[in-house]
């Protein structure tokens, strides 16, 4: 792995060296390093376009890292990663994709992640998307995340796209069984002429199921964001969504809430707010010695934390 790849790995997976536990590092379309453990088995899909990851029942306090790096200009890929998590597990899965494109051709990663999470299992999922490079070629990412939660299962997702992606279309779909919980924190920052579209669809199908979705967006420059959060309550369930955005410069944000209840015991709430940074927040930080730009930066850093 060269310096560039190492740096990208740090950016998307906070890794300085090979991780402990199970991992698969994909670089420019090939698996560069892989490790399975006694409880976590990583296999290539027969079609060759991704991996299947199997977690044994009762796997606890183990992690699985699957970062993806693209540094070749013009590299385009569509990858399917399926996760089969048994029952009574408690695991951390760290995904993430970094594209460095210094060339003139578009680089693109479309990752389709499907999670089958067994009874009473807990999964913490962290996904970071990052792009950089001086070339005219675009950096494109279209992640799709599909989550099936069985009875009593919990998925806690932290997803973010902080810089450097020209266009993205992010789809998240979840179906929850009885007493299942989905927590999702999604953060996105766009700048220049970037565009981002996010569609989050949650079906609360089981009694006692709960979802809490917090989406935070900052649109700078002339960038545009379009966020749709769509929750269906089909049982005795609780759904909460909060879509909170800051616009700066000539940024544009469209936030579309959609709630649908097909059961009288479904309780669904959607909150959405769009606005610029409050002037009094900047003033407050200036009284602590920061200049206006530093203050703005600090406020956004906190907002997208």
């Amino acid at each position: 792995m060269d310096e560039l790849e190492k740096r990208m790995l740090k950016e998307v997976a906070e890794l300085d060296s090979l991780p402990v536990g199970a991992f698969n590092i994909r670089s420019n379309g090939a698996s560069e390093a892989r490790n399975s453990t006694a409880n976590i088995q990583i296999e290539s899909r027969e079609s060759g376009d991704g991996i299947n990851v199997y977690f044994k029942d009762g796997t606890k306090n183990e992690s699985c890292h699957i970062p993806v790096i693209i540094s070749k200009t013009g590299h385009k890929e569509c990858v399917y990663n399926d996760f089969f998590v048994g029952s009574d597990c408690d695991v951390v899965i760290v995904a993430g994709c970094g594209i460095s494109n210094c060339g003139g051709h578009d680089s693109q990663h479309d990752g389709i992640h499907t999670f089958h999470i067994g009874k009473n299992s807990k999964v913490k999922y962290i996904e970071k998307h990052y792009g950089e490079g001086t070339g005219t070629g675009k950096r494109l990412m279209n992640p799709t995340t599909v989550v099936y939660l069985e009875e009593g299962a919990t998925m806690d997702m932290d997803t973010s796209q902080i810089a450097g992606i020209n266009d993205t279309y992010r789809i998240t779909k979840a179906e929850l069984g009885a007493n299942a919980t989905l927590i999702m924190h999604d953060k996105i920052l766009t700048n220049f002429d970037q565009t981002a579209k996010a569609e989050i669809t949650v079906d609360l199908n089981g009694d006692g199921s709960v979802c809490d979705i917090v989406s935070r967006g900052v649109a700078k420059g002339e960038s545009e964001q379009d966020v749709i959060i769509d929750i269906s309550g089909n049982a005795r369930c609780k759904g909460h969504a909060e879509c909170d955005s800051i616009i700066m410069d000539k940024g544009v944000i469209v936030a579309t809430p959609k709630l649908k209840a097909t059961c009288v015991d479904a309780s669904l709430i959607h909150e959405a707010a769009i606005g610029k940074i409050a002037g009094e927040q900047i003033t407050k930080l200036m009284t602590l010695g920061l200049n206006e730009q530093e203050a703005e930066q600090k406020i956004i850093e906190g907002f997208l934390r």
Partner: protein
Amino acid sequence: MLELQNISFHADDKDILKDISLKIDDKFVAITGPNGSGKSTLLKVIMGIITPTSGKVIFDGQDITDLPVNERANLGMSFAFQQPVRFKGLKVKDLLSIAAGKDVSKDCSYLRSVGLCPRDYLNREINDTLSGGEMKRIEIAMAAARGGKLSLFDEPEAGIDLWSFQSLIEVFENLRNITNGNILIISHQERILEIADKIIYLKDGMVDRYDESAKIMDDLNMRRRGGCDCAYGQKGVSCNG
């Protein structure tokens, strides 16, 4: 130390501050006066948050009238807002660290001095899960952490419950003893006015009185009369000013 020369502020067809000239050199000076008399506006003019319509602000001999807020902060001025500002995502330790100019994760003295347990609060977000009283105390801790030559406080006692009030007075007594700088504080509280060297009494955007604390309190009959600690309370009648 601080000099205001003919400060006027005009907004919405109103003269909010009218030709105020003042020299402040004493260590602990309180500003008091009726609601709407222009106290907060005056303090904000001193910090640079409001630009006066006319007049000059001189700080340690330097004309700072055109200096932005952050540059005044870096000259050693700090400011605690009457209504503290909330931030989504930023934590108490983030702002305290900026204020103190160092990482405060391990230094608990600032929060403890305002009666908050650092373990419970350092990692709290400064969002609307904090109560008004908690926000006020954190605001005071930030100004104290910044220290410096001139600390400005806008009604620090407002919204602080009676139980904590005694310790708040101690905070200011303590601050007064340890700081090498000056304190300028807007307050209605007899206990705070008492520990001031001088009191500025503002009325209708003008300085009505500016004298030794004891003298003003006697002259304006500000000693405690009612069941309320507020210097304006009438006998037996509590007030919420």
